[in-house]
C-alpha cells in the first residue's frame, strides 16, 4: 500500500479531535465521517453474518438434538403428550397469537413460542409444530427415547419395545443391541439391492434401449427383418442374452428383497400407540438422550458424510446431495475445458495480435460488458441456439432412430456447460488480458532480440508469465459457474436425475443427460418442496457447502492474484 500519511492524519483528527460543543462537532463534519464508517461496518457485518447464518442454520441439523418429553396443555384443549426436538424459539406478541386462534391472555404482551420437530408424520400428518412455551409442562428427557430415520415419512420419535429378528422377539434391555445388529444386516442387504438395481439392471436396460435404437436405425435405412435377417440376427441374440441376464438378476433381487423384509421393530409413540416398522424401512436409529458429546460428534460427522455422499430421499428433503455435487463438478469441468482455451485465444488475439485501434478498444469494452449482461439472457440463448437449433440439428442428422424422443435436442449437461462457458468467457478473457498487459515490454523484446519468433516468445515467455492470471480467470469463472442457477434452469438442470451423467455404460460419459446442481437444488428444495420445514436445514447445509466452495475458490483467486502482483513488481524495476 502506498498510502501516505493522509488517512492517518485525518483519522487522528477524527479520533482525537477535541470537540467541545455539539455545534462544533456537527460543523467539523465528523458525524458524516462516523456515518461512512458505520456504512462499511454494516456491509462487513452483513457479509460475515450471511456466512455465519448459513453455517449456523445448516450444521446443527446433523447434530443429534435431545428429545424432550412433555405435556402440552393448551387451555380449552385436551393435553397432548409430546416427544420432540426443540428447533427454535422466538418472542411473539399476544395479538399475533390471538390472530392465530390461540387462547392467550391478551393482557400480557409477549409469549415465547417454540418450534418443535415432533416427527411421526405418518401418524400426526405433520412433523413440525409451533407451541407456546408456557403451556409445555412436565418436561423431561427420557433416556431410552429413540429416533428412527425412515426411508419414508421422515423420522419416528418414540420408544423401542422389541425387535423381531427372524420371527423371534427380543425385548427389554437387549432390544437395542439386537436392533443395531439387525440394522447393520439390513444396511448390507440394501447395499446389495441397490448395486443390482442401479448398476446391473440399469446396464441391462441401457443395453436393451441401445439395441432397440439400432434395430430402429436399420428400419430407417430401409432394411426389414425379412430382407436383411443377417443384420437383425446379432441384435436379437444380444437382446436374448440381456434378457437371460435380467431374469437371473431378477431372481437374486427377489431373494434379497425377501431377506430384507425379514426383521422388524415394535415401537411405541409417546401417547402409547404401538407400531410395527419393517427394518427395511429404517435407515438409522439412535437414542440422543443417552449419547455423550463424543458419540454425538461421531454421529455428526457420520451424518455430514452421508449428506455429501448419499443420494436424496423423500423428494429431496432427506438423505444426501451427492448427485447434485457430482453434477455441479462435472458441469464446471466440462465448462473449464471449453472456456480456458477459447478465452485465452481471444485474449491473445486482443492483446497480442489485433491492431490496437478504436475497433479493438470497442471490442474490448463490449466483451467486458458481456460480463454484466444478466445470466438469464445467456440461458435463453443456450435454450434457443444450443438446444433447439444445434441439438435439434444433431438429432435429425445423427439420431433419426430415436425420434420423436430427442437426444441432444433437449436440455442436457453439454448444453448447460457450453452456456456457462459463454457466460464466463468474458471473465477469463479479461483476467488473461490483464495478465498479458502486466508483462513488461522489455521481457518480450529481449526474447525477440534473441531471435525467437513471435509464437515462440508467446509460448515460452509470455504465456508462462501470464499463467497465474489465467489461473485467476479460470478460478473466478468456476466460482461464477458453480453458483449460477438461472440459466441452468433453462438448459439442463432437473430436480431429480435418475442417472448420473457418468456411469459404467458405454460411452461412459453421457453428454445429453440432464443433471442435478447444488444451486438449483437449493432453489428447488427450498421453494418447491412439499415439506419446506423439514427440508430447510438441508437447504441451509447445501447453501453452506456451496458458499464454502465459492468462497474458497475466490480466496484462492485473490491469493494467486496477489502473488502474481508481487512477482511482477520485481520485474517492473
Amino acid at each position: 500500500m502506498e498510502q501516505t500519511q493522509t488517512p492517518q492524519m485525518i483519522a487522528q483528527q477524527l479520533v482525537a479531535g477535541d470537540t467541545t460543543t455539539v455545534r462544533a462537532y456537527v460543523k467539523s463534519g465528523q458525524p458524516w465521517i462516523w456515518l461512512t464508517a458505520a456504512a462499511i461496518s454494516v456491509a462487513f457485518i452483513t457479509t460475515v453474518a450471511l456466512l455465519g447464518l448459513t453455517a449456523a442454520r445448516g450444521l446443527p441439523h446433523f447434530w443429534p438434538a435431545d428429545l424432550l418429553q412433555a405435556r402440552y396443555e393448551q387451555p380449552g384443549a385436551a393435553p397432548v403428550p409430546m416427544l420432540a426436538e426443540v428447533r427454535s424459539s422466538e418472542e411473539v406478541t399476544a395479538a399475533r397469537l390471538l390472530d392465530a386462534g390461540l387462547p392467550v391472555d391478551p393482557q400480557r404482551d409477549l409469549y415465547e413460542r417454540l418450534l418443535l420437530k415432533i416427527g411421526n408424520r405418518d401418524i400426526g400428518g405433520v412433523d413440525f409444530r409451533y407451541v407456546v412455551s408456557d403451556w409445555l409442562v412436565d418436561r423431561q428427557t427420557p433416556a431410552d427415547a429413540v429416533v428412527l430415520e425412515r426411508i419414508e415419512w421422515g423420522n419416528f420419535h418414540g420408544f423401542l419395545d422389541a425387535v423381531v429378528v427372524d420371527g423371534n422377539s427380543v425385548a427389554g434391555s437387549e432390544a437395542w443391541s439386537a436392533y443395531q445388529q439387525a440394522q447393520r444386516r439390513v444396511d448390507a442387504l440394501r447395499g446389495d439391492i441397490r448395486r443390482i438395481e442401479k448398476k446391473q439392471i440399469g446396464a441391462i436396460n441401457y443395453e436393451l434401449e441401445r439395441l432397440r435404437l439400432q434395430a430402429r436405425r436399420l428400419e430407417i435405412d430401409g432394411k426389414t427383418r425379412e430382407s436383411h435377417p443377417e443384420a437383425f440376427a446379432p441384435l436379437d441374440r444380444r437382446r436374448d442374452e440381456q434378457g437371460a441376464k435380467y431374469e437371473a438378476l431378477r431372481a437374486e433381487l427377489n431373494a434379497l428383497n425377501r431377506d430384507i423384509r425379514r426383521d422388524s421393530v415394535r415401537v411405541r409413540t409417546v401417547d402409547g400407540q404401538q407400531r410395527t416398522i419393517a427394518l427395511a424401512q429404517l435407515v438409522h436409529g439412535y437414542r440422543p438422550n443417552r449419547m455423550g458429546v463424543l458419540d454425538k460428534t461421531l454421529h455428526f460427522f457420520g451424518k455430514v458424510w452421508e449428506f455429501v455422499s448419499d443420494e436424496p430421499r423423500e423428494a429431496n428433503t432427506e438423505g444426501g446431495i451427492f448427485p447434485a455435487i457430482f453434477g455441479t463438478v462435472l458441469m464446471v469441468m466440462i465448462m473449464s475445458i471449453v472456456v480456458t482455451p477459447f478465452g485465452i485465444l481471444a485474449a491473445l488475439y486482443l492483446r497480442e495480435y489485433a491492431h490496437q485501434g478504436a475497433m479493438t478498444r470497442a471490442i474490448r469494452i463490449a466483451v467486458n460488458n458481456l460480463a454484466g449482461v444478466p445470466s438469464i439472457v445467456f440461458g435463453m440463448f443456450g435454450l434457443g441456439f444450443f438446444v433447439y437449433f444445434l441439438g435439434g440439428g444433431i438429432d435429425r442428422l445423427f439420431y433419426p432412430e430415436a425420434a420423436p424422443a430427442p437426444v441432444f435436442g433437449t436440455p442436457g449437461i453439454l448444453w448447460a456447460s457450453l452456456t456457462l462457458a459463454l457466460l464466463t468467457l468474458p471473465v477469463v478473457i479479461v483476467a488473461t488480458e490483464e495478465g498479458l498487459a502486466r508483462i513488461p515490454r522489455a521481457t518480450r523484446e529481449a526474447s525477440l532480440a534473441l531471435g525467437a519468433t513471435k509464437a515462440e516468445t508467446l509460448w515460452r515467455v509470455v504465456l508462462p508469465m501470464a499463467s497465474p492470471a489465467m489461473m485467476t480467470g479460470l478460478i473466478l469463472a468456476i466460482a461464477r459457474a458453480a453458483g449460477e442457477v438461472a440459466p441452468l434452469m433453462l438448459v439442463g438442470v432437473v430436480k431429480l436425475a435418475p442417472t448420473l451423467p457418468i456411469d459404467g455404460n458405454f460411452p461412459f460419459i453421457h453428454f445429453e443427460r440432464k443433471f442435478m446442481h447444488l444451486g438449483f437444488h437449493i432453489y428447488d428444495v427450498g421453494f418447491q418442496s412439499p415439506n419446506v420445514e423439514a427440508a430447510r436445514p438441508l437447504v441451509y447445509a447445501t447453501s453452506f457447502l456451496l458458499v464454502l466452495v465459492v468462497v474458497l475458490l475466490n480466496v484462492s483467486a485473490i491469493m494467486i492474484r496477489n502473488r502474481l502482483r508481487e512477482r511482477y513488481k520485481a520485474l517492473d524495476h
Partner: protein
Amino acid sequence: MSESDAVAAPGVESIIAGKAPGMRARYLKDAAARWIVWLGGLGVIGALMLIFVYLLSEVMPLFGGAHIDARQSFAMPGPAAQTLYVAAEEQGEIGLRVTDGGELVFFDLYDGSVRDRQALPGGDAGVSGIAELSAERGELAAHLRDGSVTLFRHRYRVSYPGDRRLITPEVEFPMGAEPLAFMDEAGRGLVARSERGALVLAAIDTNGDVQIKRFDRRENFLGEVEVQERERQRFTPAVKADILLLEPLLTWLYVVEREAGRIAMYRLSSGNPELVNVYDVGARVREARYLAGGISIVVAQDDGRVSQWFPARDEGGQYYLARVREFRLPDGSARPTAIGPELRRRTFAVGGSDGSVSLFHATAGRRIGTEQVLDGEIALLAFNPRAQYLMAIGADGQIRGFDVDNEHPEVSFKALWGRVWYESYDEPRLLWQSSAATSDFEPKFSITPLSVGTLKGAFYAMIFAIPLAILGAIFTAYFMSPEMRQIVKPTVEIMAALPSVILGFLAGLWLAPFVETNLPGVFLTLILLPLSVPIFGFAWSKMPRALRYRVPPGWEAAMLVPAIALVVWVCFAIAKPIEAVVFGGNMQAWMDHTLGIGYDQRNALVVGVAMGVAVIPVIFSIAEDAIFTVPKHLTLGSLALGATAWQTLVRVVLPTASPGMFSAVMIGMGRAVGETMIVLMATGNTPITDFSMFSGMRTLAANVAVEMPESEVGSTHFRLLFLAGLVLFVFTFLLNTLAEVVRQRLRARYSNI
C-alpha cells in the same frame, strides 16, 4: 513480425531470413500460431456477438406483420344453389360448402374440383340455415325447411397411401341422422350450442318471435346418445330479430336488429329469457359474429366500422354489454360486409363492399393488413382451424383462397404497454397471463407490469445499496488504515461472488418471515441506526484521551461493529413491546386497518435488502477504486491549505471521483435489473403494477426463468420472452458501456492531473 524485423541486426540476417536449418519449420509454426489466434479470437468474439444477433432474430418475426398469398380463383363448385355455409379443413386442402338444397359439397381448395358430394338426411326439402355448434370440432346444425334440425359433423381422415397425404372427408351424425323436432314451420337465423350435456336451439319464426328449445343429451352405458326433449319456449324480442347470437356457455342470447342497429341482450334461464338491456350500435348492422372463445361478438356496421362487444359488470356488479373497441376499414368509403373469425385466436377477417379483406386482432386492437382480393362485394369469409387458409366468397359466387401467414397477430404497441380491456374483465387492465390452456381464455401480454416490477425491484435494491456502498467506499478508500483495508476490501468483494441463489433462499425463507414477525424492529433499526452513529461519535469525543488514543487511527469502523450490533439488538428487543403498545400487537394488521396498506410476506422490502446485498459489493468495489485513485497531491494540497478532512473530501475528493462513483452505480443498477434468482425466490412473482414496499412483483428476468421452459417454441409467447431477454440485454449493455466510457475518461483525467 514487424517487431522482430525492427530489432534484427544485419549480422543475424540468416536467422531472421530463415536460411538456417530448421528455420522454415519455426516460421511455419509462427504463421500457424498467428492464424490460430486470429481465427480463435475472432471466433470467440463472434460467438459472443452471436448472442445479440440470435436474440434479435427470434424477436424480429413479432413485428413482421402478415402475408397473404392468393391461390387460384374459381367458380363455386357443385350445384347452382345458394351457399349457406363454407368451411376449410385443418390442412387448407379441402373445403366444405353447404347449399340450401341440403347438399354438402367437398371440394379441392386449389383447383375447385369437387371431391365428394353428400345429401343431408331430410334435406331434400331444403335447408334454411346452418348454425355452428363448434367450429373447431366441425359440428354443425342444419335448419330444415320443415322446422326440424339435423346435427352433423364434418371430419377429415388423413392417411398416407404410398407416402402421399390423402385427406378423405366424412360426414357423421353424433345425435343420429334423424332430424330433431324443433319448430312447426320454417324459421331463420338458427343458432345452436351444446354445453355440458345440454343442447339448445334457437331461431326466429315467421312472426318474428324467437323460439328456444332445449335438449338434454345423455350417454347410456352402451355409449349411445339419448336425447331428451324439453319444453319449447317462445318470446317476442324487444327489437326486431334479424340475427341471433347464442353464447356457448348458454348464459347470454343476443338479438340483433339490422336496420335500426340495435342489440338486445337476454339472460337465459329456466323460464323465459330475461331482457338485460337494449344497446344502440349507432349504424345499420350488416353482420354480427362470435369471436373464438365465445365471449366477444363483433358487429359489422354500415358506417365502415366494426365494433367489438362483450358482457362486463358495472360498479354495482350488474352485467351489461360493453362496447369495447372498434375497428375501421382502411378505405373510408367501403362498408364491411362479411366477418370471418379465426377458430383459435381473437383474429378476424372483415370483407368489404369493395372486395377487400382486412385482418384484425381484437385484443391487440390492431389492423394487421388489408388485401384487395375480389372485384365485387364479399359475401362469406372462412378460416381453416389453423388459420393458415382463408376463403373469400364474392357476392357473384366466385371463390378465392389465400394462404395466410399471420404468426403473431396479438402483438401491438398498445397491447404490450397500454391498458387493454380483456374479455371477462370489467375495465381495461395491465395484465400478464401468458398461459392459455384453451382458446377460451385469451393470453394477456402486457409487458408493463413486468417492466414496472423490474424497475421496482431495482429501485428498492438501489435505495438500500447506494448509501451503504458509497459511504462505505468513501471510508474504506479515504479514512481506513491500510491494514484494515486489506481485510475489509476482499471480504466485501467476496460477497459479490456469493451465489444469488443463496441470497434468494435466505431472503425468501429466512429474511421474509423474519421481517414479517419483526416489522417494527426493522423500521426502528432503519431509523435509529443512522441516528445513533453520530451520537456515538459525539460521546466518543467526550471520552478521556487515554482511552481514545488506544484506538489506532483508521480503525473507527472496527470500533463501531460492536456498537452497531448493540443498537440493532436493542432495536429488535424494544420493538416487540412497542408493537404491542402502539400497533395493538400486530403491525401488519394495523397498517391494513389504519393505512389501508396490504402486506405480502415476500415483498419489495425483502427483495430490496437481498438484492441490495448482492449489489453492494459491485458498487463498493468500483467506487472505492475511483476514490482511492484520486491523486494524492490534490488531497494533500487541500489539507495543507487548512481544510478539514471532511471539507477536503466533499470539495476535492468526491467531485474528482464522482464519474467513477456514477459508473459504479450504473453497473450496480445493471446487475439489479437482470438479477433473476433473488427475485424469483424472494417475491411472490405476481405480475402487479404498483410501487408499494409491502407487495411483491414479477420482473422480466424472473418471468423468463418461470415461463421459458413451458413456452412453445416459435409461439408469440416464446418470442415475447425473447423480447424481454433482448430488452434486458440491450439495457444492461448500454448501462455498462456508459459506465465503462465514463470510467475510461476518468482514468485519462487522473493521468493528466
